């Protein structure tokens, strides 16, 4: 099964994660995280997508759809790994469109709450009887 990985914000801008170990007065270590760091990362398992579909995974950020990662399906099932959750609950939106070549399918927007154990998004795309 193919896997697509979501680059973290810090990877995207060429920096390492802000998580770091810091010494304390007792000689122990704790973790320090930036407010922009996600709550957790987990996988999104996409199943039953039509090969050739264009997809985009994102979330609603104050009314604006924000892309996390996108691609074109080369397999029916694949895993998007390392998907961050910036809140709890965190609603993910998977947009799927297949109109570039026949057979064409109706567009589909699939939603799911992200989970620390990962989530499965199972698609059932419907043929578009109008577009040719």
């Amino acid at each position, binding site marked *: 099964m193919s896997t697509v990985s979501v680059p973290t914000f810090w990877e995207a801008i060429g920096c390492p994660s802000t998580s770091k170990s810091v010494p304390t007065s007792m000689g122990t270590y704790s973790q320090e995280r930036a407010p922009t760091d996600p709550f957790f990362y987990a996988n999104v398992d996409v199943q039953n997508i039509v090969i050739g579909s*264009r*997809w*985009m995974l994102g979330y609603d950020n104050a009314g604006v*759809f924000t*892309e996390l990662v*996108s691609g074109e399906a080369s397999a029916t099932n694949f895993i998007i790994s390392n998907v961050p959750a910036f809140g709890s609950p965190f609603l993910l939106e998977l*947009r799927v*469109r*297949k*109109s*570039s070549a026949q057979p*064409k399918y109706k*567009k589909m927007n699939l939603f799911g709450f992200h989970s620390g154990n990962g989530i499965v998004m199972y698609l059932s795309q419907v043929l*578009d*009887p*109008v*577009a*040719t």
Partner: protein
Amino acid sequence: MSIAFDQNNSIINLTAPHTTLLLMQDLINAIRDEEASDRGIQYPKIADAEGKIDIGDGVAGDITITLLDIWQIKHAAGAYQASLKGGQVVGGLGGNPIAYVAGVQVKMIQSVAGIIVATGSGVTEQDKTDIAEKSKIALLSTASFP
């Protein structure tokens, strides 16, 4: 490109060869291609489409395209007559799917095989009162009383 999409202004720009004749099939194909493109998938959908119902013997109904939100079709500037064929397009900004362009006259035939009236017969209570009143007057004026 003859059918170009301005996502920021919600305008479908038509240029040759689609200026004088635009087929609904070409329009919906272009809309679906745009929606599935790298750019288009980031935006909400542009239109809904229905139709092409197979009624047998190779005959199918036409296409009805509903432009969503404030989307409109805009012809290239000039002085000419343009036609939309193969169905109909509705919706758009304020219910006007065609943007005004000076000098361009657009012909569009909108048709349906049947209609559904949303509420009742259309006769109001006031209409009923008026009908009853007129009937009474007519009756009194024609009837003779001993």
